[in-house]
């Protein structure tokens, strides 16, 4: 402690800028980790709170996936003696000019037993309950919703419904709090039977909310309800809802974890670099301490403590930075929920969970201690006599390099072996880590080699300055290798993320070319993924009769829970689909799979469903349905990007039989040869557009929509790329600042022997550009390997789809000027510092 106060603290104060640059990596690494997890947790907590608010006193919810179930199930549930109250619910999202709104269709008679509607104004919960029930245009809105739209009791809200454009009347305004604060107040209440009509649901409910009698346990209640409704229903507490959101956010969590680990890894190299140089710079100080009786252990502890302090400072700053990041990211993640739930979820409060803080501290501390280990050991090994002599000690011995190369080879061999056994997840990830370790261990040797290749190039540009810069790189590999390693890792991360995006876009484009080939799509919403409204199947006949229409495919896509995981079920005319938009088989016979699925003898699953849910070709899948459990074998596996959690394609006839639902989400329309897309679109709108809620998207519209969704998904990837580039630039700035400080005497000598300021500036700039170039060469090379691992991780653990390897050459080319310019800009201040300082002080340095 005394040593820290007397030795370390004055040194830190003197080199404050260097310390700040050193901790930047840790700040970023910890910040990304804390930010992403906190944002996720906050949105998830808000989502759970929303579910609780909507659930009210509901103890159990009975559902059968998105298709819902027949009304008669309610009678069966209400007749269960253990049930105190059972109320049906329909949920639907409706877009308004100020964002989406969740409409909750409830039976106002029974629902009061479960939910409290605390309304404005009167003692009465609704202005006139009889009018509310008698008029299907009645709506209860929240005060927040009303205030945002300047609505009052009896205000009118236009809405496009399945019955055409309708005007709804506000007949109640809920006070803030409880149910009214769900989804930030973007919630409205409607009579359930009116909702059935408006959303085209027929005589179906989405779910039944149940409260049990006093003394009945949840397990008893579930058992009795299960016996009453049959096996095709999910019966679970409201808190169990949200696996879909959790699955969605999990992908982001894993992605950000990788970025975070990389940033920490990079931070580790920056710390290592700084401390390695500090040990060299402070060897005289170490020598004096040793001469005064300090033991090797004390010296080691001193440097490790400094490293730990750096780590703690970086961690604390990182947590603060993470909280700021979380504030920005909650909006982004909340928006993702809109994809899943229809309504954006904003987090009311950002709270950093204790485990996140604990993990962040552990990460920051461990990273900094590992980074400080080798410099601390080197400091402890300093010979006091040699330490008091002046001179350069920067070059690692050839023995040290040889040893690193041996370790690197060992890591590389092991990582190749791990690739061969990559079906075991820990082996695969271990192999990935070993591959990165191999690259890192090889970095000094490789950077030395690239420096040698660069020497003639730099000399060719400017003989004196180029030569000096190249020599500095060659003679001070310890000074540059840490930076190069950090830069290499950053660029590898950038390449892998960019490559992932490029591969994904390429695969999605190919999928769209095959699967989304109809000329027109008739949907119930502007976005093709909204499923609140549905069409009656009878509309197909009308569409077929429109001039220019050759073929109409009816598609019903609904999310159902299979093994408690939300999966997209796509029911359509398989025979027609096979003829028009046959996806290539990954497993199974292309002709046979479609034939069997069309005959209702099997299902076709997407590659990601098979991968993420462990389904194999030929294996029987069990899907709970209101009619009972549907058991069908996997007739084939195809590459399909319809849904993140995977999709199951089945015959429409089978779906109607098991779900008693013949509604349609989308009509896929193929035109007759020569028919005009615009003309047919207009004919459809003329025929139906004014009578009902109906949108006609052209093929281009839908493709643009899919690409927009894809862009949204990759939004975070671009943030990660920005973080990686930032870390890379920070690494260069750090290295140069440290390098200039370290070489003050050398540069002073240069000036003393007649070196012009311009020449010294150019030397520093060229050295910086050299570091950038070495980092680029190694980073772009390591990026190729890193991209392979990233795509493999995406395939195994994230999206379950093999998107194929596509190196992002354009991005790699774009990185060249970016990094070289960043290196040049990073060198400006150190370059000035090198020529502005006092020559006497510079010569006396050390």
């Amino acid at each position: 402690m005394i040593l820290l106060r007397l030795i370390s603290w004055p040194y830190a104060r003197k080199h404050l800028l260097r310390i700040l640059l050193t901790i930047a990596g840790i700040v970023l690494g910890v910040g990304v980790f804390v930010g992403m997890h906190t944002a996720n947790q906050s949105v998830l907590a808000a989502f759970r709170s929303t579910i609780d608010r909507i659930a009210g006193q509901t103890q159990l919810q009975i559902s059968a996936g998105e298709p819902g179930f027949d009304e008669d199930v309610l009678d069966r549930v209400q007749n269960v003696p253990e049930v105190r109250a059972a109320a049906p619910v329909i949920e639907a999202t409706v877009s308004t000019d100020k964002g989406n709104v969740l409409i909750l269709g409830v039976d106002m008679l029974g629902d009061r037993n479960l939910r409290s509607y605390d309304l404005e104004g009167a003692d009465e919960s609704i202005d006139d309950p009889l009018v509310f029930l008698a008029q299907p245009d009645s709506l209860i809105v929240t005060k927040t919703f009303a205030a945002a739209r300047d609505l009052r009791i009896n205000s009118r809200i236009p809405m496009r419904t399945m019955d055409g454009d309708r005007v709804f009347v506000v007949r109640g305004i809920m006070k803030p709090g409880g149910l009214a604060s769900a989804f930030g107040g973007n919630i409205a209440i409607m009579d359930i039977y009116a909702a059935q009509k408006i959303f085209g649901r027929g005589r179906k409910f989405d779910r039944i909310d149940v409260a049990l009698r006093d003394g009945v346990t949840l397990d008893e209640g579930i058992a009795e309800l299960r016996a009453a409704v049959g096996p095709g229903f999910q019966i679970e507490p409201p808190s169990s809802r949200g696996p879909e959101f959790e699955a969605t956010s999990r992908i982001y969590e894993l992605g950000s974890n990788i970025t975070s680990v990389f940033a920490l890894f990079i931070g580790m190299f920056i710390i290592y670099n700084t401390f390695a140089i500090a040990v060299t710079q402070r060897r005289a100080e170490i020598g004096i301490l040793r001469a005064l009786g300090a033991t090797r252990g004390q010296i080691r502890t001193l440097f490790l403590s400094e490293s730990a302090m750096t780590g703690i400072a970086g961690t604390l700053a990182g947590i603060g930075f993470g909280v700021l990041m979380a504030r920005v990211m909650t909006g982004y993640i909340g928006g993702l929920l809109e994809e899943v739930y229809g309504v954006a979820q904003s987090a009311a409060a950002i709270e950093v969970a204790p485990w996140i803080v604990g993990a962040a501290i552990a990460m920051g501390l461990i990273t900094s201690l590992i980074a400080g280990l080798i410099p601390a050991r080197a400091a402890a090994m300093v010979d006091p006599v040699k330490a008091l002599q002046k001179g350069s000690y920067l070059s690692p011995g050839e023995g040290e390099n040889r040893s690193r190369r041996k370790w690197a080879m060992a890591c590389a061999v092991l990582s190749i072996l791990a690739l061969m056994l990559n079906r075991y997840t820990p082996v695969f990830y271990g192999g990935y880590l070993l591959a990165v370790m191999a690259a890192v261990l090889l970095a000094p040797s490789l950077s030395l080699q690239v420096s040698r290749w660069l020497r003639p190039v730099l000399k060719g540009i400017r003989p004196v300055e180029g030569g000096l810069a190249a020599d500095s790189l060659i003679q001070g590999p310890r000074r540059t290798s840490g930076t190069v390693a950090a830069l290499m890792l950053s660029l590898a991360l950038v390449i892998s993320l960019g490559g992932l995006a490029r591969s994904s876009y390429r695969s999605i484009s190919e999928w769209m070319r095959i699967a989304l080939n109809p000329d027109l799509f008739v949907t119930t919403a502007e976005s093709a993924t909204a499923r609140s409204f549905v069409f009656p199947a009878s509309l197909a006949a009308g569409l077929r009769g429109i001039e220019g229409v050759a073929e109409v495919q009816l598609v019903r896509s609904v999310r159902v829970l299979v093994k408690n995981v939300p999966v997209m079920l796509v029911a359509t005319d398989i025979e027609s689909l096979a003829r028009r938009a046959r996806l290539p088989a990954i497993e199974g016979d292309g002709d046979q799979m479609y034939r069997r699925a069309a005959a209702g003898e099997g299902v076709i699953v997407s590659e990601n469903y098979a991968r993420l849910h462990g389904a194999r070709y030929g294996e029987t899948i069990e899907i709970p349905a209101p009619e009972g459990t549907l058991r069908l074998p996997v007739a084939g596996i195809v590459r399909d990007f319809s849904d993140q959690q995977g999709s199951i394609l089945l015959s429409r006839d089978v779906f109607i039989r098991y779900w008693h639902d013949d509604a349609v989400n989308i009509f896929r329309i193929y035109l007759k040869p020569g028919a005009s897309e615009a003309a047919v679109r207009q004919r459809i709108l003329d025929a139906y557009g004014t009578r009902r809620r109906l949108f006609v998207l052209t093929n281009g519209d839908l493709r643009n929509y899919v690409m927009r969704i894809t862009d949204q998904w990759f939004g975070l990837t671009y943030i990660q790329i920005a973080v990686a580039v930032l870390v890379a630039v920070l690494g260069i700035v750090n290295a140069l600042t440290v390098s200039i400080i370290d070489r003050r005497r050398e540069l002073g000598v240069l000036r003393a022997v007649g070196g012009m300021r311009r020449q010294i500036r150019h030397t520093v700039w060229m050295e910086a550009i050299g570091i950038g170039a070495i980092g680029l060469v190694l980073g772009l090379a390591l990026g190729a390997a890193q991209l392979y691992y990233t795509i493999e991780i995406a395939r195994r653990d994230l999206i379950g789809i093999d998107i194929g390897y596509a190196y992002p050459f354009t991005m790699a080319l774009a990185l060249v000027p970016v990094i070289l310019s960043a290196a040049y800009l990073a060198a400006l201040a150190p370059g000035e510092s090198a020529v502005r300082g006092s020559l006497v002080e510079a010569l006396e340095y050390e």
Partner: protein
Amino acid sequence: MNNRWRARRLASAALLVAAMAQAQDARQIVEEAQKRSESASQRYEGILQVIGAENRIATKRWVFERLGSFGRSKALLRFTAPPEVKGVALLIMNHPDRASDQWMWRPAIGREQRIALQDRSTRFFGTDFSFEDLEERDVNQFDYKLLPDEGGQWKIESRPRKPSQYSYSYLWIDKSKYTIRKAEMYNKSGLVRVIDYRDFAQVRGIWTARTTEVLDVKRKSRTILKFDKLEYDIPLKEDLFTVEALRRES
């Protein structure tokens, strides 16, 4: 000793007989009240005023028709005003041995809805009546106990034998006309509703309250129902009181 023992036994037996006689009396009183109000059918036009805690008054009108009586009756209540609620109807099928079946009809939605048993305790369309209060339960569906008279009226405690939102009720019955003048309904938490019957008049020999006032004790709101154009024993068709008729007549 024996005499004293015999006297004690006799006294106990006398008390038991007296208690049984008292219970019998309470039941007989209610039975008599029910008997005196019995009619083959009933029709009236109701004027309903709901007076909220802030003295805001909402007025509605309905037509009520009943065929049969007590435990075996069928009733149809159809709103006639204001225009927003016109056509909304409630069909009640009373049963002697169990709770009634009830269906609501909403013409704007064009469909009937069964009122679940568990929802019978909820308020009847914003009034201070509950759906259960609209049932006509037979005398045999309750246990009775005669309590000391109050204000010259019998006070009877009535406890439902079948599931009900109420744990027990007190009834005040006029000794001369055998008409129920007041009822207080209690649940586990205490007093829930108070119903006052007033403006009695004889219609076809039946003493009938022309005004009924319900007080929701917790919400402190009142509903006043006035009976207009009251008729008994009029010809009503059986097929008017079916779910199909609800749809047909809307």
